[in-house]
């Protein structure tokens, strides 16, 4: 026997959570794209999507956010701080790859210095993930050591019932348990079978790839130029990546008052590393693509013992020239050692 949440009760769940002062967010398709948005009613959710076009990270790390306001007077500089203070929220219907991405970035945002902009939102969010029963041509979680029902980064995992009427509920963290309390009356005991999870084929041998990447000999391999020749250097893969976390800090306003903001930035951009002197350590697009791959599968793992890719496949799915992590790692895993 296990707890079951029936789809019919979802809107009632949402009301109960709201009564507790929590907002409810979930995958929504709106205005020609899809992402996470606040919902009132279960019908607003688009739970049939394999994956939203935009990632969960935007809820914790928005594309632009104010950090400080400043106002400069004759005698004093006055500043205010914008720190996230939204109500606690339930994120209903995240996918395992996205949820895993948040756990990966926690490592970085807490690395000796704690980023309050990230953690104030993280701490107040409960991620309720729905295991995938479908995947598409771009999904590759299994190749990254994850699975369509990975628990990483989630507080509650829901397994879709074979009947399609609801989900088996698995509580994963104390935070998840607490979030389930207000809706306890709506969770029914049952033994209905879960639908099989999606079969996501293995696309490459991750270990072979990371071994190849770790070999300094390969850093200047011709491979990098060839694999990235068509890269146009747009930031799409990074902006739609659940783990890419690079940002810029920009002041907007005048000498007297304005706002200092934290804005997404991307290692794909030429100006990202350009020194004021004009020297650019990564002057070519191939060097920048290499950086993205190395950062995900070598540098980040060196530091935090985890690869910074969850196999969501968005980089390939959304690339205007059909590149992505998938092609690169597939190519590496077939290279002669």
């Amino acid at each position: 026997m296990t707890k079951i949440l029936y789809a019919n009760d979802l809107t009632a769940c949402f009301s109960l959570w709201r009564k507790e002062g929590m907002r409810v967010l979930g995958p929504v398709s709106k205005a020609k794209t899809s992402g996470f948005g606040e919902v009132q009613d279960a019908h607003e959710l688009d739970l049939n999507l394999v994956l939203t076009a935009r990632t969960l990270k935007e809820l914790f790390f928005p594309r632009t956010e104010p950090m400080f306001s400043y106002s400069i007077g004759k005698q004093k500089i006055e500043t205010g701080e914008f720190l996230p203070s939204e109500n606690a929220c339930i994120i209903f219907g995240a996918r395992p790859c996205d949820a895993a991405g948040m756990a990966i970035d926690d490592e970085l945002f807490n690395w000796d210095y704690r980023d309050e902009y990230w953690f104030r939102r993280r701490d107040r969010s409960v991620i309720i993930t729905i295991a995938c029963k479908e995947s598409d041509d771009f999904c590759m979680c299994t190749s990254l050591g994850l699975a369509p029902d990975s628990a990483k980064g989630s507080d509650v995992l829901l397994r879709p019932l074979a009947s399609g009427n609801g989900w088996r509920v698995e509580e994963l963290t104390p935070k998840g348990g607490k979030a389930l309390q207000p809706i306890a009356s709506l969770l029914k005991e049952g033994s209905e079978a879960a639908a099989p999870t999606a079969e996501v084929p293995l696309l490459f041998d991750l270990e072979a790839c990371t071994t190849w990447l770790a070999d300094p000999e390969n850093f200047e391999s011709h491979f990098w130029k060839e694999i990235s020749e068509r890269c146009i250097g747009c930031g799409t893969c990074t902006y739609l990546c659940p783990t890419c976390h690079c940002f810029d800090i920009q002041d907007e306003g005048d000498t007297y008052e304005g706002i200092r903001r934290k804005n997404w930035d991307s290692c794909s951009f030429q100006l990202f590393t350009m020194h004021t002197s004009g020297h650019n350590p990564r002057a070519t697009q191939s060097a920048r693509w290499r950086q993205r791959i190395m950062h995900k599968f070598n540098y980040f793992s060196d530091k935090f013992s985890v690869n910074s890719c969850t196999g969501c496949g968005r980089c390939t799915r959304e690339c205007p020239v059909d590149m992505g992590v998938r092609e690169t790692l597939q190519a590496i895993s077939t290279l002669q050692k």
Partner: protein
Amino acid sequence: MTDTIIAAQNNIYRPAVMKIAATRNEAPGVKTLRLEFQDTADQEKFAAAYRTGMFGLYGIYGEGESTFCVASPETRKDYIECTFRQSGRVTTALAAAEEGDRITFRGPYGNRFPIEEFHGKNLLFIAGGIALPPTRSVIWSCLDQREKFGKITIVYGARTVADLVYKQELDEWAEREDVELVLTVDPGGESPDWKHHVGFVPAILEEAAPAPGNCVAVLCGPPIMIKFTLASLKKLGFEEANVYTTLENRMKCGVGKCGRCNVGSVYVCKEGPVFTAEEVSAMPAADL
């Protein structure tokens, strides 16, 4: 806007306010600011944390923040000196700031020169152009406790005589008996009354031929100078483990989040900017 303004002490991106106590023109386009904390708590925090080699983010609200080293030594922590060349948006605004103006500071960040490990050793400082400031921080940290070190040699070169920074201090070091100062300017950069060397730093260094035995070298300069000077040091018999340098990657956050300064497995802002030549060799050269 859903965010409200809350004051929090633990915001890692929040800068302290500093007052410009003095300014000094060092060379064309190069300026030094002497800064004092407006808030004593910030001053105490800085004094407790600062060690030579660390850097800061100096800023002006409305323009942004810019990264440079703390050019003052760890033996004098009641103020901060920074020296910069006016080149971008922020440095242009900083250069326009005057005595009494307030700017912002975040830091000190990064690692440091392990000065205790230099005790009892001979020290060789090599700097090019605008890279004397990070070197100068170490130089004064050592000169202020002169008895703890052996022979001190400073090799400093700039493109032209006018481009030499800290001219007063160069005179001071030249006069000191316990410092050997070797000054040079690039060919064509000498003035009629120039009495020192003419030539590039690596060549002048090889001429001066400091002995590598029991000696630590601190080398700061533009990437191209570092490359050739490292080769010269190798020729002179210096081991890479005994050569320290600083990397000057572009930075925004200073605290290992924004990803900009990442090279190889290193985030320069967190694990640098001070590295031995041996550590730099382990980084992907193409990305430096």
